[in-house]
Every structure is written in structure tokens, then in C-alpha cells.
């Protein structure tokens, strides 16, 4: 399987005690990869993957393009093919949940979506939060807010999902459903997290533990 995301000998631009050794990882097309690590490494890794943080060395290739070396316009075009959820999720507080899906989609050119509202409504319907669609983020429970933010990443049929500490507040059974739906909507994903999440491990193909000893592959079942 070809790698849809490849990190080779990556070090962050600012010296970091937690991330002192070069980091290498490939995410093959059609797989879900989870990297469990510390909060700081998780934060840095997610941002390096989307070109929001620079690297001191190494290369990050996303969908065949070196994201840290492309122009601002090219980076935006590349990001419009991804579905990204960072921590904090950063839902726009002055918009309703559904508008939080629609507005970014139209501003990035609505690639692949002819009718953003209908598409967003379908995503909400599938995720089971349609009844909250017209409420503002501050007016819905935390778990709904997190699922809404995940829905925003799923709009536009992303070729790659990049998630940082997703849906931590969602109950286990509901989380299992959410992950199953996400897996159906986005075939390839990389999730960085510092939390143990059994439901996520159930849908993941590869689980990596990244600690002071380095990056090592773990059996999904054993970790769960």
C-alpha cells in the first residue's frame, strides 16, 4: 500500500526535550493509525503534519507533497483535501454548529461539495447530532460539541483525517458508533493522542506508542 502520509527523520524547529530524536512514520492509504504519546508531542506532531509548525530537519510528505516546503496557497489547497481537528477544537463561537461546518467549507472553495448545507446536514444526521445543528457551541453539551468538531473535519470527504485528542468526552458506546461512521467516511486517518481510548483502538489498524524509549508499534488489542 502506498503511503498517504510520510514523516522521515523529523525534528521540530525549536529544540524540545521531549522530542529529541528524529521521528519517522508512514501512514498507508486506507489505514487508521493512532500515535499515543505525551500531550506536548501530540500537540507538536499534529501541527507539523499540517504545516502549522516548522521542522528543523526531515521531511513531511502529505498526499505526495512536502507540506513544509510548499507556498501558502499550495498549503491551503493541500489542507482542503484533509480533514483536521486540533485540540482545542476551535469551533467558531458566534456561529451555529451547522454553520461551523458550512462556513469553512465555502471559504476553502467547497471542493467536492456542490451543496455545503445539505452535505453538512447529512454529516450531522449520520453522527446523530442533527437536533443540535442550529445551536451555538456554547449551548450544547461538551460531547456534542466534540462530535460537531469531528463532523467539521469530515465535511468535504477528506482524503486524510488528522485528529488531535478527538472526542474525549464522548461516552464509550456512542464513541464506538462515531468512530465506525468516521471510518466509513474517511478511509485514511492519523490520530495523535495522549489519552487511552479503547473505542478508538478498536477501529484503528495501527497503534504506535511514542515515549522516551522512542516510537514502537503496539498490538491494538493488547493496548486496549
Amino acid at each position, binding site marked *: 500500500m502506498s503511503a498517504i502520509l510520510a514523516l522521515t527523520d523529523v525534528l521540530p524547529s525549536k529544540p524540545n526535550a521531549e522530542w529529541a530524536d528524529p521521528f519517522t512514520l508512514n501512514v498507508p492509504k486506507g489505514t487508521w493509525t493512532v500515535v499515543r504519546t505525551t500531550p506536548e508531542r501530540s500537540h507538536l506532531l499534529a501541527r507539523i503534519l*499540517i504545516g502549522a509548525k516548522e521542522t528543523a530537519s526531515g521531511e513531511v510528505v502529505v498526499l505526495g507533497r512536502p507540506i513544509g516546503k510548499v507556498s*501558502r496557497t499550495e*498549503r491551503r489547497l493541500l489542507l482542503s483535501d484533509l480533514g483536521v481537528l*486540533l485540540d482545542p477544537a476551535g469551533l467558531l463561537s458566534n456561529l451555529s454548529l451547522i454553520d461551523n461546518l458550512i462556513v*469553512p467549507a*465555502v*471559504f476553502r472553495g467547497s471542493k467536492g461539495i456542490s451543496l455545503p448545507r445539505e452535505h453538512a446536514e447529512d454529516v450531522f444526521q449520520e453522527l446523530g447530532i442533527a437536533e443540535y445543528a442550529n445551536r451555538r457551541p456554547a449551548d450544547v453539551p461538551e460531547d456534542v460539541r466534540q462530535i460537531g468538531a469531528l463532523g467539521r473535519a469530515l465535511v468535504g470527504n477528506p482524503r486524510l483525517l488528522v485528529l488531535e485528542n478527538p472526542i474525549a468526552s464522548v461516552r464509550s458506546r456512542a464513541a464506538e458508533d462515531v468512530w465506525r461512521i468516521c471510518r466509513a467516511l474517511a478511509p485514511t486517518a492519523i490520530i495523535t493522542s495522549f489519552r487511552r481510548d479503547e473505542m478508538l483502538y478498536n477501529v484503528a489498524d495501527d497503534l504506535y506508542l511514542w515515549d522516551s524509549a522512542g516510537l514502537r508499534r503496539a498490538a491494538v488489542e493488547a493496548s486496549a
Partner: protein
Amino acid sequence: MFVVDIVGGLGRRARNAGTAGVVAIRLSGAVLRAGVSLPRAALGQWWGAFARQIQFTAWDALTLVSVLALLCGAIIIGEANAQAVRLGLADTIGRIVVAAGVREIAPALTALIVAGRTGTAIAAELASARALGEADALDALGVDIIQYYVLPRVAGVAVAAMALTLVFDAATLVGGLITVQALQQMSMTAYLDSVRLALSVSDVYEAIGRGLLNGAGIAMASCVSGLIARRTATEVPRAVSRAMMWSSVVVIGVSALGIMLRVLA
């Protein structure tokens, strides 16, 4: 966040090396490029944000600006009238109102009102968006934050400041007229003739130009101030204070530019 890092880098360079002019030109270029490349699908959203900005900046401030302008006209006439009549220069009253009120005080005072009301609000909003991770999230989704945050605010505040400057000009002249009538030292016709002689079409163009420049400059300074804020709540008041300071520099700079151009002309 990539774009914010660029803007932040520009802001830091301006502070450290005094290259504010270069920063302003580069940011203006970035705003223009963002305008040209705005996706067609986003036009509806963009017009909504643009209209809301005009409503907040101009419509909501109309009473305040009108009252201040009336008082301004009254003060100018009140100060100038006694001296002018005593020296037999009553026909210069209109010229004084136009020179002091319309050409200098109106654009500068309007701009300071816009900076105090709108500039600080923009800086607080964008610094909060940074603190809450909203700006980072939009950037991560491939949204150009200059298109989303900066462009509608710069365009909206520029148009609103221009409109408010014209309103301020008109209200200053009306304030002067009311005061002249109240003091009973000059007829309404004489006052209006005096104003008409002093006022030229270029004054209107200058008011429009200075209003647009002040508005755009204040909005850009405030947006940058908000977007370079670090991701903590305590950065919000710092961003507001920085926006007010930078906006004041913009207002004084535009006033100086106006005087220079008038002297050269």
C-alpha cells in the same frame, strides 16, 4: 499557525526594527491578494460580514458622531466668531469652519472614534479567536484567515469611516450654522455663502480619501494586533491597547500625509 506566524513575524519585525511601513505595504498586498482570490461560494458569507462591520462601525455610531460633530462646529464658531467680528472678518467664518472642522478635525476625530469603538472591538475579537483556538482551527481547515477575518473588516471599516467622515463634515457645518444663528452675529445666508466659497470639490474628495485610508489603516492595525496575540486570555487586553496605540499612529500619519499633499498641491 502558518499565516498567523507570518503576520506575527511581520508584527515583531515592525516593533523591533521599525519597518512599520514595509509591514503595512506587505499586509495591504496580502489583503488585496486575498480579495482577488476569494472563492465565489464564499461571497454570500463575505457580504454578510462586510455589512455587519459597516452597521457596527457607522450606523451604530451615527448618533455619537453627529452629536460630537454638532458640538465641534459650535465650538469652532464660538471661538472664532467673536474674534472675527471684532476684526471685521465675519466673512471668513465659513473658511475657518471648513479649514479647521471639515479638513482637519472631522477626519481625525472620526478616525479616533472608529479606532476607539471598532478597532478595539476587532482586536479583542481576534485575540479571543486566537486564545480559543478558532483562528488556528480555520487555518488547519485550509481557510485563508486573511480572507475570513481581515478582508471584510478592512473593507467594512474603510467604507464606514469614509461615510462617518462625510457625516461629521456635514454635521460640523450644521453645528456652525446653529451657533451663528444663536449668536445673532451673522445671517444664515451670509454663513452659507461663506462656507460655499471656502468649500471645494477637492475637500469632499479629501474627506473620502482620508476616511477610507483611516478606516483601512485602523482595521489592519487592529486585525494584526489581535492575530499576533499569544494564546492566553491575558493577551486580549494587551491586544486592545496595542490596537489603540497603532491606530492612533495611523490617524496621525494620515493627517500628516493629507497636509503634505495639500502643501505640495
